[in-house]
């Protein structure tokens, strides 16, 4: 379990990336959702011991990220946002180096790397220079690192950002092979829905809402989303799109007013908790 205790991160005197957040992340896969600059990466970097908080702390499986850094690092694997492979080295070489940094012997690192590459269907590319791989394959190599390291806790910071839909599905299928506890950040709602059991919505350094997907969706009480360009009735307006959450018995009425009706999904949690706050 990961317990976040009042973590604040401040840059300079007034710029707050995180504002004293608290949370218990209990489910196996937790997604931290938020817009760009919401504080997702800062949170993951702090939890994965890459960044020190200004105040507060967190525990991972009971170990404090500040006091027990070594023990925490033994437990985790962290794939940073926008991390890329060293183009001139092969996936196998880079996985071997990563696993040796995690404390594996050279032989063990090689064997585990090969096995993980095989599991993610990258074995045939193990010796190719990394700059010849596609974007999706490169991200899969990082997932393979986490898979091979067999760490109990894995942090994946925006693992599919910038990938085309096909590559994204490939990376998702790779992530699904991981059996560890996973903390994933993304700004793709469908990714959170596809991969996780628990969602933390973060905006402007605050946790807006947190819970299992089922629980968060249930807060809409079976409502539907009606949206229309330049619509006059709305709960939220984004650019010129009016969004109104309506009871099911009002669907026909809103259709007649020219609204499109959609089922509630994670987008709505994000919209209602994050964007609505700002607007």
């Amino acid at each position: 379990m990961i317990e976040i205790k009042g973590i604040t991160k401040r840059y300079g005197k007034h710029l707050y990336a995180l504002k004293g957040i608290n949370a218990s992340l209990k489910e196996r896969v937790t997604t931290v959702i938020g817009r760009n600059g919401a504080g997702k990466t800062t949170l993951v970097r702090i939890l994965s011991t890459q960044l020190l908080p200004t105040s507060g702390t967190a525990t991972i499986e009971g170990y404090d990220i500040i006091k027990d850094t070594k023990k925490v690092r033994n437990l985790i694997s962290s794939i940073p946002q926008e991390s890329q492979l060293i183009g001139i080295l092969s996936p196998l070489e880079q996985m071997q180096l990563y696993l040796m940094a995690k404390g594996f012997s050279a032989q063990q690192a090689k064997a585990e790397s090969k096995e993980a590459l095989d599991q993610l269907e990258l074995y045939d590319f193990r010796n190719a220079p990394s700059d010849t791989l596609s974007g999706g394959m490169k991200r899969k190599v990082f997932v393979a690192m986490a898979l091979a390291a067999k760490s109990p806790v894995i942090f994946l910071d925006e693992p599919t950002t910038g990938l085309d839909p096909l590559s994204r599905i490939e990376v998702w299928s790779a992530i699904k092979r991981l059996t560890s506890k996973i903390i994933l950040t993304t700004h793709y709602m469908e990714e959170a829905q596809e991969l996780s059991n628990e969602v933390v919505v973060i905006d402007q350094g605050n946790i807006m809402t947190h819970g299992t997907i089922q629980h968060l969706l249930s807060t809409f009480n079976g409502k539907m989303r009606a949206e229309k360009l330049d619509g006059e009735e709305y709960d939220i307006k984004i650019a010129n799109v009016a969004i109104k959450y309506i009871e099911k018995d009002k669907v026909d009425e809103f259709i007649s007013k020219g609204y499109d009706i959609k089922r509630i999904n994670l987008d709505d949690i994000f919209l209602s908790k994050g964007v609505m706050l700002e607007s």
Partner: protein
Amino acid sequence: MNPKFILYFAWYYGFFVILRGPSYLVASLSLPLALLFIVTIFAHGSLVAISFAVAGGPIAIVAANSINGAADAAFFRIQIRIQDLYVATNITSQDYMFALSLSYLVFSLPGIVLYAVLGSYLKVFSVESALPIIGVLVLLTLTISNLSFIIAGLLKHIRNVWGITAILSIIMTVLPPTFYPYTDIPMNLIYVLSISPVTPAAVLVQGIVGKEPLLYSMLFILLIETVVLTLLGRKFIRWRE
């Protein structure tokens, strides 16, 4: 300390880069070889002048490759985030810095071997001088690499690194007495130039090969610079920010 990681990293990122990107190797050799060519022309083939340029060649190669390491270190930290990947593992910033430094030394090996052959042919280097020269080159790699980590740590944008390393590479390899006798310039100036670790290294090598008097004070300066820059490098590398 994780020596296995350091050695494997240095081998992969030092040696394999030579095999897979030989143009980088040629680029790193081009400046010292060009300067050797110019010295040969201007000295009208004088063996004395050439031997100084040959003695300074390995110093110039090691210094240039290590200072270019700033580009690597900045690229790994800012652009491809490899440094972040390693922060959350069991290695320390020291392991990471040693690994990168050693990879620059491995990358410098072909150039050092080329100069060793040339120097042996011209009777500049001897078997007895080999070990102390290697020691000086190792210290120089450490000092300049750490200077690179400091530069990389201070940078916010990757694009600045190319210009800075190009300028420093020239300042560090051409201005100090790398290619000319250190006795040709006033002693005070030697101490001023010692702000670049290349100066004490070059002066020491000229003393070791018996071309000039051996200045032991330069060993002291080089050791101090190694310690100070290593400590500063650890601080500036931004391992856990």
